[in-house]
Every structure is written in structure tokens, then in C-alpha cells.
């Protein structure tokens, strides 16, 4: 008999879709809005907290954006207060992350975060070099990023992530090595390195289309990625996920729920939830979202329940991002069959090509497979 497992969401994501200015590469849900819109938005978020109250117990909470730290001090305080008030976070919350962008964090805001149970900060540094920051459309300098990091350390945060982007137009391998050096020199507990992606309908993609800029050769990007892995591991970081490095014990707990395709709840405009096998998303438009929530309308614009087979495939695709791979035991418990039974052909073919390995009851990407992960993953869909 299979045990009835607790599948209620253990992770909560709160989306703050506001920024000082939209970045050139960004296609996330973010806008530049008037302060009173933000206030009304917080009303809506609070309303959602109220609905979730006493229903779930979250192990991790993640406030992302946008730029959560674009909220002024009183707005930020109000958001954090209500998260505590409605029981979204408590002393028992294992990980409470807030995303912060350089030049938007004041000492007062840092203290607010610290006083409201936030125990992890993720800083959107992207680069320490002005030419690349300008290209990306960031509002801050490299020094701003260092200052913000120092300020947060001083405020008492012992778990800080630094986000970096590589593969900017015109970036050299040497540039990238410098960025890595500076970042690691700050001794963050966690580093994320993302290859720049040209998302449709972004200013950067248009520039590429119009040949104003040209993308880096794939081989250079590959070298950059390999360099990040070498730098990270040489400096005592564990390369535990495709884009993520952490000192031992500082792996992101929240993202782990996504990677393992487990349940999570989402609050805010455009936020996704995955509860009881049903995936939903809120209205993306900030004003429609606010009106909808405040008038008690259904703001769900997307809903799907995947059949088991597709859900299994998605679980493999997501979990392969983790270097330790997919555990057969977890897979069996969830889908009632062995991973190598379900995906016999794919595993056979991909192992023969040296792209995946299946050892110790774990299916994982080999180093060769890591570099072409998308192509490998597509085989499971």
C-alpha cells in the first residue's frame, strides 16, 4: 500500500512586479509604477495572505520581482508585517529570502528585513563592470553592488546570494573572470551564474535582431560557463545546480521545491502556484490583478492538471538541473514506477552518447550532458 503523502505546498513565492526601471534583457513581470499603485498592490497581496492563512505551513518563503526593495520603507514594513501577521512566515520558517537590487537598499530597509525574520538575501549584481551594466540597462554601478553587499553583511545577513550574468555582447572571457573574482572576493554563501538569454520582445532582443549588437559565439559562452564552474569549485563552492553554486549547507531550499517539481503557492500578479497537482497562474497585468483580487474575482488566467506521464517527464526535466540528479526512490514513490522503466529508451540512448549516467539509483547529467542540457531534457518530453 502506498502511503498517503502530504502534498500541501511547503514553499511560498511572493511576486513584487515593480522596478525603478525595466532592464533591457528582462521579460519577467515587472513595471515602473506610481507609489499609490504599489499601496493598492500590497492591499491585494494582503488579501491573498488572508486566504492562505491557516491553510498551509510554509517551510520557505521567497519574495522576488521585479525589485522588492524598490518598495519604500513603510511599504516594505507593511509587506513584511502582514506576512508575519497572517502566518506566512514565523520563527520556524526555514528560509525566508528577499531579492534586493543594488542602489535600492538603504540601511533602514536592511534593518527592516533583518527584523522581520528574513534570513537570506539575493542580490541582483549581474556584473561589476560599467560597460556590461549599461548594456543590460541596470541602474547601478559595480561599486553600488559592492556597497549593497557590505551594507547587508553589516546588517547581519549570513546567507547572501550574488546573481551574475555572463555572455553579454562584447564581453570577453577575461571580463568574466574579473567579475567572478570580485564576486568571490566578497565571500557570498551562494552564487548564481546565468547565461544572458535574448528573450522575445525585449530591447536587447530587438537590438540583436537589428544587428545593433551581436551575440557571443557559442564556444566563448561555453568557455565562460566552464570557467564559472572551475572558479566556483576551486573556491569551495558546491556546483549543485546548473546555474547555482553554494558553500556547504547554503544550497537554496526554496528553489529546490521547483527543481523537484513539488507543490508551491504563489502570491501576486503573474505568480504561479502548483497545488494538488494543479498548476495555476494569476493575471499578469498589475492593475487587473489588483482589481480582481480586491473585488473577490477569480484572477486565475491559466490552469492545468498534467496527466501522470507528463508530470513524470516534467519532474525528470526539472530535477536533471540538480547535479545529484533524480532519485529513483523519490520517483517511484511519486509515480509508482522506476525511472529506468519509464524512460528506458531515452536513458539507453543518452547514456550511450555519454550525456546522462544512471548510477546509485540516480539519473543525472554527465559533464558533457550538462553543457547541452536542454537538448538532453527535450528527449524526455
Amino acid at each position, binding site marked *: 500500500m502506498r502511503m498517503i503523502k502530504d502534498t500541501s505546498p511547503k514553499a511560498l513565492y511572493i511576486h513584487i512586479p515593480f522596478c525603478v526601471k525595466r532592464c533591457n534583457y528582462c521579460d519577467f513581470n515587472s513595471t515602473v509604477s506610481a507609489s499609490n499603485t504599489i499601496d493598492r498592490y500590497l492591499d491585494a497581496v494582503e488579501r491573498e495572505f488572508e486566504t492562505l492563512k491557516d491553510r498551509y505551513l510554509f517551510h520557505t518563503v521567497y519574495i522576488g520581482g521585479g525589485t522588492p526593495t524598490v518598495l519604500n520603507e513603510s511599504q516594505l514594513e507593511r509587506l513584511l508585517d502582514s506576512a508575519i501577521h497572517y502566518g506566512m512566515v514565523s520563527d520556524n520558517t526555514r528560509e525566508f529570502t528577499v531579492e534586493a537590487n543594488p542602489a535600492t537598499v538603504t540601511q533602514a530597509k536592511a534593518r527592516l528585513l533583518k527584523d522581520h525574520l528574513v534570513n537570506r538575501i539575493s542580490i541582483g549584481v549581474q556584473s561589476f563592470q560599467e560597460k556590461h551594466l549599461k548594456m543590460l540597462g541596470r541602474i547601478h554601478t559595480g561599486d553600488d553592488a559592492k556597497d549593497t553587499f557590505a551594507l547587508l553583511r553589516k546588517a547581519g545577513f549570513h546567507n547572501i546570494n550574488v546573481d551574475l550574468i555572463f555572455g553579454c555582447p562584447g564581453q570577453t572571457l577575461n571580463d568574466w573572470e574579473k567579475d567572478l573574482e570580485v564576486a568571490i572576493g566578497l565571500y557570498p554563501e551562494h552564487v548564481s551564474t546565468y*547565461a544572458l538569454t535574448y528573450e522575445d520582445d525585449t530591447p536587447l532582443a530587438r537590438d540583436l535582431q537589428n544587428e545593433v549588437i551581436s551575440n557571443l559565439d557559442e564556444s566563448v559562452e561555453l568557455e565562460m560557463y566552464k570557467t564559472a564552474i572551475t572558479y566556483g569549485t576551486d573556491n569551495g563552492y558546491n556546483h549543485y545546480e546548473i546555474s547555482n553554486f553554494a558553500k556547504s549547507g547554503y544550497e537554496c531550499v526554496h528553489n529546490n521545491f521547483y527543481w523537484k517539481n513539488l507543490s508551491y503557492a504563489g502570491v501576486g500578479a503573474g505568480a504561479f*502556484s502548483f497545488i494538488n497537482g494543479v498548476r495555476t*497562474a494569476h493575471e499578469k497585468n498589475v492593475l487587473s490583478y489588483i482589481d480582481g483580487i480586491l473585488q473577490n474575482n477569480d484572477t486565475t488566467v491559466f490552469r492545468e492538471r498534467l496527466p501522470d506521464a507528463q508530470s513524470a517527464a*516534467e519532474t525528470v526535466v*526539472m530535477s536533471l538541473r540538480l547535479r545529484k540528479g533524480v532519485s529513483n526512490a523519490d520517483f517511484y514513490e511519486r509515480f509508482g514506477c522506476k525511472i529506468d522503466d519509464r524512460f528506458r529508451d531515452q536513458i539507453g540512448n543518452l547514456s550511450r552518447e555519454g550525456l546522462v549516467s544512471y548510477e546509485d539509483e540516480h539519473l543525472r547529467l554527465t559533464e558533457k550532458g550538462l553543457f*547541452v*542540457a536542454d537538448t538532453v531534457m527535450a528527449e524526455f518530453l
Partner: protein
Amino acid sequence: MSTEHIRNFCIIAHIDHGKSTLADRLLEKTHTISSREFRHQMLDDMDLERERGITIKASAVALKLVRNGKEYQLNLIDTPGHVDFNYEVSRSLGACEGALLLVDSSQGVEAQTVANAYLAMEHNLTIIPVISKLDLPQSRPDEVLVEMEKTLGIDPHEALRVSAKTGEGVDAIFDAVIERIPPPKGIADAPLKALIFDSVYDEYRGVIIYLRIFDGSVKVGDEIYMMKTKSSFKVEEVGVFKPKMVVKDCLFAGEVGYCIANIKSLHDVKVGDTVTHNRERAAEALPGYRAPMPMVYCGVYPADNADFHLLREALERLSLNDSSFTFEPETSQALGFGFRCGFNINIVQTAPNVTYEILKTNKEVIRVDNPEKVPPVNEIEEFREPVVRASFVLPTEYVGTVMQFAEGRRGRYKSTDYLSEKRAILVYELPLAEIIFDFFDKMKSATRGYGTLDYDFIGYEPADLVKLDILVSEKRVDALSTIVHRKDAEIKGRKLVKKLKNEISRHLFEVVLQAAIGSRVIARESIRAIAKNVTAKCYGGDITRKRKLLEKQKEGKKRMKSVGNVEIPQKAFLSVLSVDE
């Protein structure tokens, strides 16, 4: 029974000159169908025809008409008007004594007008020239009559002027049919002699054969005998088309109608065969038709191998209704199970090719309808290709353009004749292989739609041909092989591998594309391996995005065939056709 009251005729015209509209008008005027039943373009009754928008199936309909107190039966036998259906036109003509030669008064004489008129003359039919579409503002009947006189020797005074749309002049057609076309000269009491000019398969009744009775008569209960297939059947029903099937007791000499005789399969019936009585057989058969010889072949494969049987059923249905369509199963290493079809239909997968003749060094002559069957170079003494005589009718200002165009396709200039100051007939001999694919469309656009084309097969001629092979990662892909002229081989090979380079997506390994003649590689391209393909972000819980991304990447993969480890999209298999673009 006398045949004095019977007339058998057909309408011949260039495509789009209004044949179906005129036929409808004739039906309507004779009250052959009630206006309630009237449906535009009654004679196009096969689903396929509607799908393709052209008439390919000959049908027949009996029109009843009273003139001067006498009742006449006018049998209208429909003919197709498309350039590819010469064979069908010919078999309809065999059942008639006369033809309405329909010419659009705004378009004038076109290539198929000439071709069909000559065919009718060869069959000794009485020709009634009809100038149509007089209602159009751009109508120019006098000029068109001059063109008809110049090209076909038609007396302008014999021409009738009509507008099928308004009905103007249509009555005069009936008079002309009765007065000018001779009644059929059958001998009523001679042994039965009837021509099968068409046949269709009906799920419930079996094969329905379309007959033109030349001598004698046929009635229910008769035992008939097919002189060519040497088989006999018992007649269950005879009748005429009005245009629906109407049962009659008997079909007499001179009449056109149908016969149902418990014939299970269309393969038991040969169009062009002569039907006679089993007991009292005719001394000799009617001349009949020469068997249609498919000249153009292509491979047709289901995109999904599981649909193989569906494809087979579809092709069988088509072949039942058209004996010029043939198909046989074939297997391609690259594409799996499919069919080689002697016709050009919508789901073409491999490039169509013509049937070649090869004289081997051992003096054996083989027919090659698939590049795959070309023997090794050292066994070929002579490579021969089919050649056609193509006539273009076009405005004089495009003569130069079309000449240049035809010469680029290895055309041999024969003649230029002027229909009028403005229009000319240009005649070229061209390899069939050069015109089967895009020739017609290219010619149309080169002449801004004014040029028309008709062609006849004239024979096989030796040519310096070679088989061009394509190798994908060292593996020869049979479905990409083509037969080309040696002088074009290198350029085509280079263009083809370049084109394939764009069609085939990158793999995790380098893909090498080569074009080769025998063992000699004449062109090479390579598709470099994917070095890095990894999406950094996981999009804050929006897994659907990741999935969409990966699915997009996988998209179309289902429509690909893999050769070795290389996935080749379906589009690539047709790229051999359009290397020039």
C-alpha cells in the same frame, strides 16, 4: 430503333474558359434537372474534383429536347480541361460525333484550345466553334475569331456567340448540335459493340461502366463479354444519366449510358475495351485507347509510419477511379514504408521524377522510375530521358522571356507562329524532367499569367545524365538522390548541400553533408555540433515556460525521419526540387 434523334457531343476548352458553366446552362435549358436540384457545376461529381477544383472525371448526361415537333436525345459527354489530362480528353472524344470548341472571348485561343481541337480533328469529330463570355467587358470576339481561323482553320461564320452566364445564344447551340453533328451511324441489329469510355466504383452496386453503344443493343439479363479482358458478366441494370442515373430497359446503338453487371472490381474493367454479347460476339473490337503510361513518379510516404494503411486505402480509391494512376509499395531506408506513385498528388514527399530508360552494357533496356534503380555507372551504355513537345501560346512581348526560360531548361527551339499581331505560338522540345515540377508556375509568372502551355510526349532521347547522391554523415540517403544532367550536376550538388545545411538543425555532433556522383564527392558542407544549449533560469516557478521552450525545440521532430542519428525534416526531402531558389 433509329438513331436519327441522337447526338453525341462533348465540350472541349482550355481550362477556365467556362466549360462547366456552359454544361450547367445546357442542362438547365433542357430541364434535365429541376431548378430545385440545380446546383452549380453539376458535372463535377467526384469528391476529388471538388477538392482540387478541376474536372478530371468524364461524365455523361442525356439531354431531352424537342425541335420541330421531334424529340431529340443529346448526350453530353464531359471532358477534363487540365493540361495533365490529355489521355482523358481523348477517351471522351472517342464516344462522340461532335464537339463544341469553346473559346473565352476575352482570353482567346490558348495552348489547350489548340491541343484539344487537334485531338477532336484526329477523331474526325464535327467541330462547332463557340465564342463564350460575351458578357465580359473585355470580350473581343472578332479578334478571337481571327485567332481561331489562323490556328485551327476555323471558318469565322460557323462560330456561335454565347454568354453562358446570361444564357444569350445558348439556344443556337442546340440547333447547331442537331443540324451540324451527324447522328451516330450504328447498326441496330448487328451484334453488340460498345465502347467503355469510363468506369466508377460504387460501394453498393459494384463497378458502373460508362458505355457508348456503337452497334446492337444491351438490356437487363444479357450476358456480356469484354473483348480485351475476355471476361463475361450478366447485366443487372442499364440506364442513362440525366444527370442522375435513370434506369432503362435497353440501350440502343448510338446511345450513351451506363451498365451495371455485378462487376466486383475496377481491375476487371479496362477503359477502352469493347463490350459485346457473349453468345453472339462482334467480329472485331473497336480501336479503343492505348494504355496510359505514367510518366511522372514520386515517392509518397506517411509522415507517421502508423498511417501506412490509411495512405494505402486513399491511394487505392484514387487508382480505382483513374487508370492512369498507378502505385506500388516501396521502402526507403530514410523514410520507411511508402509508395511510388505514377501521378502527382498533394502529399508528395520525395521529389517527383520522370521515367528514364537505360541501355545497359549487356544490351538490356530497363525503365527507371526511381533514382534508386539506376545501375552502377559502368553498367550504363546509354541514359535516355523522355522528351516532350511543348507549345506555348502567349502575348508576343513575352516571346523573348519564354525562349530564354525554355533554353535554361535544356529546351530545343522548334518554331514560332503568330496567331495575330499580339499573340504567338512558340514550340520547344524539352526534357520532361525539366518541366514536371515548377515549370508551369514559373512560365505563368514570367508571362504575367498570360502564357499557356500544352505538351505531348514525343519519345526517349539519349542524354548525358548522372545520378546525384546525397550523403548525410557518410550515409547515402536514397530519398535525396536525383538524376540530373552532367553539366548541371556540380552546381546542383553544391546548392543542394547548402540548402540541406539550412534545413537540417544542429545535432550534438557534427553532421557532414556531401553530394556525390558515384564515388566522387563534388560538394561538401558541415553542420557544426551544438556546443552549449542550456537555459540558465528556472523562471520563478513558471515551469510551463521551460516546457514550452523545450517543446518548441522538439517541435517538428515528429515530422522528421532519422538517418543514422541525423534527424532530417520532411522539408529537406523536397529541397531537391527547389535548389534554384
